[in-house]
């Protein structure tokens, strides 16, 4: 992917750019809002990582200008503050996702992958999701693997649906919390892991090749 990074702090910018390059992306970096807006409007990007606080032109204004001009490039907004109001404000301005500093690189990487996918696959809503021999029928709200039906609780169904929509990509615990549980909260212990291991029991138990993988230090991934 070709990614535009607009971030004024050289340290943060360096570590994000290094990680993205290691993941095989092409990265352009702007260290102020004006240059960022210029690049965003003149070059075709697959995604933008945008800091909220920038010299010359702040991130929110940049984003509004971009969206006002009809540019729909998936944008991940970075901010130092994590208030709900700020997040809502950012999403309203046209951001596709929101990440609070400081964050682990794995979180940024996973979210960017999710964004880029959303950008391309949003055209036709499928009625059926498939990952190898695991199938999810979105109309009947039922799951099966290798033809055998899998009984799912409503929350497990939502969990599996999200994982299947993000198949092949790393999904962090925070992303799961936000997508599957509708609350913004800090899970005290490993509640999410327990839900995942329950789901894993249901979809992987009795099959030679496991589908639901734990990605150490990051989260989970469904499929290879």
């Amino acid at each position: 992917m070709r990614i535009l990074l607009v971030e004024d702090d050289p340290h943060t910018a360096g570590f994000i750019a290094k990680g993205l390059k290691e993941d095989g992306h092409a990265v352009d970096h702007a260290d102020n809002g004006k240059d960022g807006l210029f690049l965003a409007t003149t070059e075709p990007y697959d995604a933008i990582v945008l800091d909220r606080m920038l010299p010359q032109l702040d991130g929110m204004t940049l984003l509004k200008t971009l969206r006002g001009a009809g540019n729909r490039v998936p944008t991940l907004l970075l901010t130092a503050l994590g208030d709900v109001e700020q997040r809502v404000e950012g999403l309203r301005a046209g951001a596709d996702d929101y990440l609070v500093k400081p964050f682990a690189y794995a979180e940024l990487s996973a979210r960017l992958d999710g964004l880029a996918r959303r950008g391309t696959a949003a055209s036709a809503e499928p009625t059926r999701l498939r990952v190898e021999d695991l199938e999810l029928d979105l109309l009947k709200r039922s799951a099966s693997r290798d033809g055998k039906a899998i009984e799912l609780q409503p929350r497990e169904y939502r969990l599996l649906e999200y994982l299947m929509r993000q198949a092949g990509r790393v999904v962090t615990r925070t992303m799961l919390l936000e997508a599957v549980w509708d609350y913004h909260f800090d899970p005290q212990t490993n509640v999410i892991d327990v839900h995942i291991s329950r789901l894993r029991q249901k979809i992987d138990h009795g099959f030679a090749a496991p589908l639901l993988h734990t990605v150490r230090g990051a989260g989970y991934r469904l499929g290879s």
Partner: protein
Amino acid sequence: MSGRAPVRLMSTSARLALAVTVSFLLAFALLGAGVYYAVSTLLTADAREVVRADAAGLADIHRGAGRAGLIAELRGRLAAPDDPDAVYALVDRDGRAIVGSAPPLSVPRSAAPRWIVFRDGTDGGTRVIARLSPLGDGETLLTGLRTRSQDGFLAMMLRTALIALLVAAALGALIGWLTARWVSRRLQSLDLTAARVGAGELALRARLDGSDDAFDRLAHRFNAMLDRIEDLLGGVRHATDHIAHDLRTPLTRLRNRLDQLREREAPAPELDAAIAETDQLLQSFGALLRLARIEAQPPLRDAPAVDLQALVRDVLELYAPSAAERRIALRDATGPASVRGDADQLFQLLVNLVDNAVKFAPADSEVELALSASGAEVRLEVRDRGPGIPAADRERVLDRFVRLETQRSSPGTGLGLSLVRAIVLRHEGRIELLDAAPGLRVCIALPRA
């Protein structure tokens, strides 16, 4: 809480007004009594002077014209009185009246004249001041004066004074009431401001009216004090935020480096442990920042109603797998209940409580969540069958970073219950930790939506 204080304030100034009115009336009554006494003494002395002169004239007639002349004079005066209030009588040694009428007199044996006061039976009981003058042959001359005009004057004075007293009392009560209302209104605005600031609305200030009177100056000083408190609090919060934030950034950097290291090297348990420790630290800082932010937020009043029962059920569902792993039954004893507030924060509150309960409950036991609405309150109760918290520590565990010796081995930041309390306070509720014998009972009361 804020509804009760102004009432007490009102009664304080009302009591003050009443006390002032009563002491004013008392002083007025005392003064009135003094004047009444002085005037009536003066009037009596005047009357005696008139009687004394009259008696002296009659004594002259007795000396000059003898007993018969005196009797003729008395008869003449009684038949055609110059003064209708004059009273005369001649009494023999046995107390019988020879001329005129006299009250039953104890027979005067002494030779000196003396004063008596009696009520004139013939005329509805008018007071008579009389002088008894012994005539030397056992007979006594009574010269008196009906004090009709003096009594009338005194009665009128008393009536006037009473009316004045009543008017003064009414006026005093009215002025007292108005003053009390004014004072209490001035104080009430200050009192209400103090209560709301105490509840967390730190930006609120008392209203100044620019009159520069004592109340206005008090409000002014009060505001200056609040400015100072806000400055100090802001400084502390700023420092905490900065410490947590500034430490979080290098810590995240450290974690990212460890991550990179892990990807390159062969798996090392020490590395995993180091990453887990870093995550734990990051979680603590995150919780501290969240706590600081919630404590700084003003209380929620006009927030939308949140279905607390639905929240409880979602939390129970979230924890069902974790609880089932340890064969802990989560019992749902909820009834419908709504509160006004922040759904995310209320969910966090429930998560922290249920997380604790499941963590400390022994295997094969039960954790119960009860929810009920009664009157103006919603009561939430989380009960486990774990070791509980000793009575001496129950208040303490709500403070930041307090962890009991028995919990040292279990994971946690020591901020979970602090966060719960901050959220409860922001929703203007109360929290209480009780003994469930065995186990812990956390009771939370929130205002009903």
